[in-house]
């Protein structure tokens, strides 16, 4: 465990330059703006998730440029520890970004009260959870690409999950005899939303399966990589 902790620290040191004051201020301004314009906190938190997903490639980019993949074995890190450590780092980065977005939203709520606006909902909405889950699944699909091809080759391939979702959206919208897959899915989802426990169980199951497959693929790919 201590090795994983050290690795997360090393990853943090590696991406530190991306996390300068400028980046934090940009996120803060975006979060404040979205809270004030949308009137909901969930949208702001959603921005946090999107920023986190966009940032997934940072540790891979820095590792590739600096040759850190060759450094890891000299620090007595196994490939399994590198993969596990990277997943934990990304998870913590996601949590930190969403937390920061929420704190920014709180600031936005405070500001809105000063200007006489009202923020309708400060809690976690189901819409936010659904959008976040979708983005996290995309992130989980992207990670094995980075482990297999390294950042510079994989950065174009990581657009594939986004493109696939748009393509899928187009496909499910096609209706045959007045019935479309979209309608069936929406009906299923509306039933699911009515049963919150079921929704949580399905979301957690899908996420767990994706995490498992993503991790196993990353392990298999990274074990074969040589630097």
């Amino acid at each position, binding site marked *: 465990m201590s090795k994983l902790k050290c690795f997360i620290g090393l990853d943090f*040191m590696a991406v530190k330059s991306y996390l300068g004051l400028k980046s934090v201020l940009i996120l803060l301004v975006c979060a404040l703006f979205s809270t004030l314009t949308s009137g909901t906190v969930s949208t702001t938190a959603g921005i946090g998730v999107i920023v986190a997903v966009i940032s997934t490639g940072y540790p891979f980019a820095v590792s590739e440029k600096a040759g850190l993949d*060759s450094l890891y074995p*000299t620090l007595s*890190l196994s490939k399994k520890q590198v993969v596990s450590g990277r997943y934990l780092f990304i998870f913590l980065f996601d949590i930190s970004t969403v937390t920061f977005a929420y704190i920014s939203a709180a600031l936005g709520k405070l500001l809105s009260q000063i200007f006489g606006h009202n923020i309708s909902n400060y809690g976690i909405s189901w819409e936010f959870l659904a959008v976040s889950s979708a983005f996290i699944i995309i992130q989980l699909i992207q990670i094995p690409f980075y482990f297999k091809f390294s950042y510079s080759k994989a950065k174009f391939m990581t657009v594939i999950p986004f493109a696939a979702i748009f393509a899928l959206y187009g496909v499910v919208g096609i209706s045959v005899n007045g019935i479309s897959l979209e309608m069936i899915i929406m009906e299923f989802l509306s039933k699911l939303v009515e049963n919150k426990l079921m929704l949580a169980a399905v979301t957690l199951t899908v996420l767990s399966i994706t995490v498992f497959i993503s991790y196993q693929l990353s392990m298999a790919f990274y074990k074969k990589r040589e*630097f």
Partner: protein
Amino acid sequence: MVNTTNLLEVRGLFKKYKTFTLKDVSFDVPKGYITGFIGPNGAGKTTSIKAILGIISAEAGTVKMFGKEHSNVLNTGIGVVMDSPMYVDDWTVSDVEKAIAPFYGNWDSGKYAGYINQFGLDKKKKVKDLSRGMKMKLQIATALSHDAQLLILDEPTSGLDPVARDEICDILREFVSDENRSAFFSTHITSDLEKTADYIIFILEGKIVYSGSKDELIEKYARAAGSISDISSEHKKLIIGYRGHSTGFEGMVETANIRKLPKSVLTEDISLEEIIIFMNREGKESE
């Protein structure tokens, strides 16, 4: 039985690439000495070092470090200095310590600060702003701050001016003044090894062609030169890396074979650099 006189024992390393193969690489790095790893560019020095460190996986062979079968865990006992530092360009000299130190239980911050001071490095300076010599010194400072027993250096003096090279050689000599430590030092700059190395491992086209003491290697061969008309085809077979030109021939001969050559052939002491050149030439001609 574990041979505790060797800090590193490599046996039968084999790794095949499309255009290059590391063939049955075997050698020892004895305790208390500097061992030079020489060979021309592309001979397999870096590949061997990467296989030893576990950066690449060998298809066959074993590596024993400190008397134990190598696993990544043992890498805490070694200090690694590569051709270019594996640090983030935007890290400052202080950041390097923050990133690396947590991996070593015996990291000594006082020692690191001492080396940084001794090597004239500025703690606030970024890695990307350091000269090549300073980058090497930064890696050495890191390697020495966790009490490494074995230093593995890949081309540490390549691209450095003579003063910086001499400083690195001095650091290595000081390091092995403790007889429990060793330095394993790859280079193609043989003058550095002539000054510092006690043992030499010579690799050519992925195969070890010599492993032993530096003095024995230099004594084993002599430079031979003379008129082409002085030697027969039988004599020519004794000349390693034979090259004929308009005024005569030159090559290298095993000192044990000097007597077999005509007295008109001039033989003299040979340098490590010439040994590499003649062996390389011989290897290419025999292909």
